């Protein structure tokens, strides 16, 4: 029932935002036409107001596109299947190469990640968003981002091995690994931990750390929840933030395949 109403809400958001785009495009185009035909007839004040009109309609457009995208996540069937996270991370980092180079960030990766059950494209988006934020909200000269995986509290570093049977949590159920993206960035105040995931909520002024619609973490949370996972964070101001998340797979029925940890056992 809840699932159905969420779907209806997504349908509603999708249709409404699609219809909102048309008049908005009209406003934008007409301000462009005025600019083309009458710009030299305007004084500086008029020019600046016209430019602002164009800029604001563009901003509105990107907000609407974000809602459209968010709604689409809940409307479209996801393609669930085995997802090799090593490959996903390699692809994601490849996609982000220009950003990685220009921000001169040190990306730290443990050797191996498991294969999970999920939607490959969307899991890639989760990593891309979290890594992107880790780089963006960082004012240190030596930026680093560590992406890792914890299994029952034991970090899967290169030299650590999973104990036989350790995939069982204390309650006897097989547990899922916890993934994390850790940075040495600006940090987030604890009072913002919840509102951080709210759509369009930004924690910093636009001029400080660059533009964005403030929907990245909202989208990340939605994708993770679609995988029946959970996301949370730890942070210390001035020292850095760690986002943790789990991915339980489709409807939580499919558990991880411990054999995909072969390299550790």
């Amino acid at each position, binding site marked *: 029932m809840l699932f159905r109403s969420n779907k209806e809400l997504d349908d509603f958001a999708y249709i409404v935002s*699609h219809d909102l785009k048309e008049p908005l495009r009209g406003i934008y185009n007409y301000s462009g036409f005025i600019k083309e035909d009458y710009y030299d007839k305007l004084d500086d004040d008029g020019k600046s107001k016209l430019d602002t009109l164009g800029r604001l309609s563009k901003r509105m457009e990107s907000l609407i596109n974000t809602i459209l995208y968010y709604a689409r996540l809940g409307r479209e069937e996801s393609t669930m299947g085995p997802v090799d996270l090593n490959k996903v991370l390699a692809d994601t980092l490849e996609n982000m190469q220009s950003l990685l180079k220009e921000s001169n960030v040190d990306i730290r990766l443990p050797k191996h990640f498991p294969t999970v059950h999920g939607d490959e494209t969307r899991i890639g988006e989760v990593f891309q968003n979290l890594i992107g934020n880790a780089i963006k909200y960082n004012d240190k000269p030596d930026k680093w981002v560590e992406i890792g995986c914890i299994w029952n509290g034991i970090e899967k570093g290169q030299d650590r091995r999973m104990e036989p049977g350790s995939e069982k949590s204390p309650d006897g159920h097989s547990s899922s690994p916890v993934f994390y993206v850790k940075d040495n960035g600006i940090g987030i105040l604890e009072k913002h931990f919840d509102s951080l995931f709210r759509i369009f909520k930004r924690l910093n002024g636009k001029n400080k750390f660059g533009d964005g619609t403030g929907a990245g973490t909202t989208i990340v949370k939605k994708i993770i929840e679609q995988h029946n996972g959970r996301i949370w964070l730890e942070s210390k101001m001035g020292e850095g933030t760690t986002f943790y998340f789990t991915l339980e797979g489709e409807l939580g029925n499919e558990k991880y395949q411990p054999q995909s940890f072969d390299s550790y056992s």
Partner: protein
Amino acid sequence: MKNISPNHLILIVEDSDIDYETTIRAFKKSSMANPVQRCEDGEEALDYLYHRNQFSDKVKSPRPDLILLDLNLPGTDGREVLEEIKKDPKLKTIPVIVLTTSSDDKDIENCYQAGANSYIHKPVDLQGFFEAIQRLKDFWFEVAILPKNEMLT
């Protein structure tokens, strides 16, 4: 190289006045002087193509050489128009370019399934839109060779 005469008729199926005006503006920028017929919805487009109702005079409503088709139209929408055109042995040779705001993967897939000749996403920024029309003109009116209209009518 040039195979299209400036007389080639373009049918624009577009309900939004502002989008139509923008397209015409872009044509002018690309110095396209082709005659243009506009239909505001899918039903009107089909009436035009089949010479029905107010379009029964074949001389006054000649067959277009190229169709620019919006997808989201009131009533009969662009998807249905596309299917009708591509199911009709006479009409199917007219290149149909879907020009839409929808970037939905499903729309793209369905349009090509139905036989669309290309699918163009209307760029939001004006400059991008003008460039898209310029390229569209370069390709369809200068690089591509279109079927001869007379032989089919």
